[in-house]
């Protein structure tokens, strides 16, 4: 490619000097360079903007893609972990329900077995058997001793007779005691009755016949104590009863006298004089009234 100086030299046919041509070339080059720089800058700016927009789109696309992918990964991990956790829970529950129970039973059985072995080692079964036998033997011997002691006493003839005789005497004494007690009881009752009768007789000996009859009737079957406590009260009752009877008779006599006064006034007057007190019919009448 030919430069601008050669083109101008051919076009102007050596009209322009070499210096002018060089100056023109310099100016031309400078101007062209400036324009080129401007264009390059513009192109670079446009390229930057374009690339920036594209990069943003790319980043967004990548972000979206990565987000989608991460979500899928998270979901997958969640599902996987959940499944694993479920398995762990099931395993744990199974272990807790079955294996723990088995372990517990085994542990208890082993401890129990260990204790048995330890006890067997420290206190052998033979020793226990011997101790139990000794205890049993002592009890049996005690029982045998008791039985034999009684049998020996009974088996001896002289002692046997004495025992039988003693038993008979005891029975006889018991019978006698029972009879004596019965007799004492009867005699005590009789004595109490006699005492009661005596007391009653003593108390009524100075009374008149009617009072005696009444007191005997009321107190004959009572005890001595009852008679002592209630004799005066019983007599008081009798006297009160007699007073009531006398009052009743008097009232009836007054009524009879009043009614006879209307029919036979003369008879009433003769009563008032008091001469009839010696009349035997009047006394008979009064004595009849006294009976009631």
């Amino acid at each position, binding site marked *: 490619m030919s430069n601008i100086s050669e083109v101008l030299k051919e076009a102007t046919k050596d009209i322009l000097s070499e210096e002018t041509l060089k100056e023109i070339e310099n100016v031309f080059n400078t101007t062209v360079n400036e324009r080129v720089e401007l264009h390059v800058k513009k192109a670079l700016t446009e390229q930057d903007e374009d690339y920036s927009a594209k990069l943003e789109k790319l980043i967004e696309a990548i972000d979206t893609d990565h987000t989608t992918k991460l979500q899928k990964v998270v979901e997958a991990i969640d599902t996987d972990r959940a499944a694993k956790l479920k398995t762990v829970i099931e395993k744990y529950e199974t272990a807790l329900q079955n294996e723990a129970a088995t372990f*517990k039973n085994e542990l*208890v059985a082993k*401890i129990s077995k260990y204790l*048995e072995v330890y006890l067997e080692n420290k*206190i052998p079964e033979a020793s*226990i058997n011997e101790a139990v*036998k000794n205890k049993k*033997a002592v009890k049996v011997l005690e029982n045998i001793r008791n039985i034999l002691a009684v049998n020996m006493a009974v088996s001896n003839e002289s002692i046997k007779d004495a025992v039988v005789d003693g038993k008979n005497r005891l029975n006889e004494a018991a019978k006698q005691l029972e009879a004596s007690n019965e007799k004492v009881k009867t005699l005590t009752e009789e004595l109490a009755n006699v005492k009661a009768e005596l007391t009653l007789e003593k108390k009524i000996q100075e009374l008149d016949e009617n009072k005696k009859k009444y007191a005997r009737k009321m107190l004959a079957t009572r005890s001595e104590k009852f008679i002592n406590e209630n004799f005066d009260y019983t007599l008081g009752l009798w006297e009160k009863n007699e007073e009531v009877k006398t009052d009743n008779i008097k009232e009836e006599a007054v009524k009879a006298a009043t009614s006879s006064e209307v029919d036979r006034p003369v008879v009433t007057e003769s009563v008032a004089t008091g001469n009839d007190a010696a009349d035997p019919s009047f006394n008979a009448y009064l004595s009849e009234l006294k009976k009631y």
Partner: protein
Amino acid sequence: MAETTANKDNNNANLLNFVKHISQKNYAEANKYLKEVVDSKLKAKIKTASKNKLF
């Protein structure tokens, strides 16, 4: 060993309580349950021995 079923159950319950109290470091209670188990086992042994005839 002639342990009855009821006795065995009782012993197992006592041993469980023994282990429980040991794990809780409650040694006094644990000792109580262990003593009961040992007593029960000894009684069972004595009972078995007492069934043997003397002669």
